[in-house]
């Protein structure tokens, strides 16, 4: 399935949960936040939310800024 991840279109095998995607990317246990189609996916729900073809995901971190 095709997912837009931080603005880039990428292919992933289906089915895929948010937790599995985060693990694939190497961010398990890191302080990140995930938004799916404009809505926050709370950390406690990463394992149960399954991604769908065409989803738009944003994964963010805190960086230096003023």
């Amino acid at each position: 399935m095709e997912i837009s991840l931080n603005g880039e279109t990428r292919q992933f095998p289906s089915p895929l949960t948010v937790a599995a995607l985060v693990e694939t990317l190497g961010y398990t246990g890191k302080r990140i936040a995930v938004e799916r189609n404009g809505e926050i996916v709370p950390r406690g729900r990463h394992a149960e939310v399954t991604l769908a073809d065409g989803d738009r995901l944003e994964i963010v971190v805190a960086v230096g800024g003023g």
Partner: protein
Amino acid sequence: MDNQMHSLTIAGKTYRSRLLVGTGKYKDFAETRAAIDASGAEIVTVAIRRVNIGQNPGEPNLLDALPPSQFTILPNTAGCYTAEDAIRTLRLGRELLDGHSLCKLEVLGDPTNLFPNMPETLKAAEVLVKDGFDVMVYCSDDPIQAKMLEDIGCVAVMPLASLIGSGMGIVNPWNLRLIIDSLKVPVLVDAGVGTASDATIAMELGCDGILMNTAIAHAKNPVLMGSAMKKAVEAGREAFLAGRMPRKYYSADPSSPTTGLIGS
């Protein structure tokens, strides 16, 4: 007394410093941490950005250098140009920080002067306050719109003293004073401070606090400037509370006795 004089209460929580600092533009996280420690700031603001997919997910994280257990992390919306982007960014920031509601809203209007877009800022503030955020808001030094932000329910109003990152200092003390005098919530100068005397002047005007980044990060010695800013904010606060002497124009007043001089 000392603690009360220099402590700042925002949204019901009391902080030990009236200086808030940004975390951008430092050489590395070690310098960021050392300068912030020297400044004594407890509230530190951070930006929210996309992770670099495919690039070293194990790279050091800012929040390892500034753990939320030791600092109050203030997620901001730097770089957002619409209310919608700012709202989404702060919802992500709240999720990132385990539901922590204090945030810094800024909606920019122009990439060259980074002046706030006030209509979008007001729109975002309304949504965020209704959504349970404690909103500290970057705004223009317009007393009317500053009051509107207070009326919406923002917990602190933060007018610019001059352009973000410019170091031009306090360009319109008169407007800042109008805002300070007409608002009940804390008023903090956010942006424009260039050196320690600027911070002192802002505090002498009666500002409740100052948020700065570049003045410390781009000093030749950021750690020493962090220390200078801590003292400058405290000195300005004490001078404000002490109450300055009245200015006497064109009329000197000797400090020493005018009688008892030898040869008289």
